[in-house]
């Protein structure tokens, strides 16, 4: 009793079917002792925000390989805000061109983890970000 587990939603917006990266991240977070709600493929920002609300998650990981990140990510932030969930941390995986990174970080994304990222790096980042949000 009295456990405080970090809850993370892993979602894959967009229409491509490449969810291997999302599954690898989900598994790594599980092995780091987090509770991972895995929602599967082809999620809309509305579905993601709704799930984040119902599950009361601390963080959301979005895996995007379609190139639509500059449309999807702002929309997710907008919906989180509308739901009163500004405290939820958002991180990205997949294919994100370098020139988009500064703008995404400015929107509030805590980290962008492309292919080849070691799992320790995002695990640490999520722990730190969620911890500072709780204090």
């Amino acid at each position: 009793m009295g456990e405080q587990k970090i809850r993370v939603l892993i979602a894959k917006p967009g229409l491509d079917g490449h969810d291997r990266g999302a599954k690898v991240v989900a598994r790594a977070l599980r092995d780091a002792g987090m509770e991972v709600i895995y929602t599967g493929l082809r999620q809309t920002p509305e579905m993601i925000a709704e799930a984040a609300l119902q599950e009361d998650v601390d963080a959301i990981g979005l895996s995007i390989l379609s190139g639509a990140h500059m449309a999807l990510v702002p929309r997710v932030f907008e919906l989180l805000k509308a739901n009163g969930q500004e405290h939820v941390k958002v991180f990205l995986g997949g294919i994100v061109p370098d020139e988009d990174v500064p703008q995404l970080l400015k929107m509030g994304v805590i980290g962008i983890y492309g292919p080849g990222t070691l799992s320790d790096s995002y695990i640490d980042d999520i722990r730190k970000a969620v911890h500072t949000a709780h204090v």
Partner: protein
Amino acid sequence: MDLAAAVLEGDRLALARSLSQVENGTAQGKSVLSQLFPHTGNAHLVGITGTSGTGKSSLVNQLARHCRRSAQQGVARSIAIVAVDPTSPFTGGAILGDRIRMRDLAGDSGVFIRSMASRGSLGGLASTTAAVVQVLDAAGYELILIETVGAGQSEIDIARLAHTTVVVEAPGLGDDIQAIKAGILEIADILVVNKADLPGVENTERALRGSLNLSHPTPRRVMHHGKLEVVEPQPELPADSSQVWSPPILRTVALDGTGVPDLAKAIADHRSYLESSGSWQQRERWRLEAELEQLLQNTLMDGLQSRLPAGAYKQAVEDLLQRRLSPYQAVEMLVDGAG
């Protein structure tokens, strides 16, 4: 506004946060529960259990969809789903994947889905599932579907929590000996053979029916030495046979929704049966008693641990290892030492 009041007002964010507080066993969670408890007792709690891979989540998805569709014709009701998946015993982490099968329900504000990790409990539910269900009940959800961890033979906590327990089987999982073993089949109020489009469905259904006929005492006609005799069931049964619930066996295909309307009807029938036979009150009593017992156990255990002198527990384990104490002696020592 405080959390409990917001939940009663229908604030979904407050509901989600309350569920986390309750799940984490925080002081705030306990206070919310105490405030909400007088508002509970209205929802129909339906458990969905069965081996992993039989299609429980997909079935829950279809069932909720069906009930929501009939809701528009004025029958039913807002629905909450609590889906439990296992926690890793090694890392404490969990992958909660039941939502994947429930994507059809996204965007319906009359459905609230919450995933839970079992967090070390072994009975197919988390230790706080009952409390989480109470919060959803107080929030006004009329039908609460509780999906257990993929359950084998003895994960039967759900029978103590739910008013109606649906056990989901699938073809090809075991022979008729599996069906007469004790455990999960005995707790079924409704039996479902899902994936009924697969070969072997007749065999599975026959094995289940055979098992049910053995365990549910109804009058039977048998040929005995060339004479037809009626074998009366065991005593203590109400004279009116409509007062006995005999679990129906239903076939479904969760992928396309075949058989789901019949399942929804069976669940509603079971509720009517519980109400007309007086079993609803009886089950409520068992349910609350079971919860009280579990809470009492946890509280006593916590209390014991906090009163034990530092290191006493570790020392007891060491004594066991060295065979200086038997487990019974160790318990006696710990309980005395804490008193």
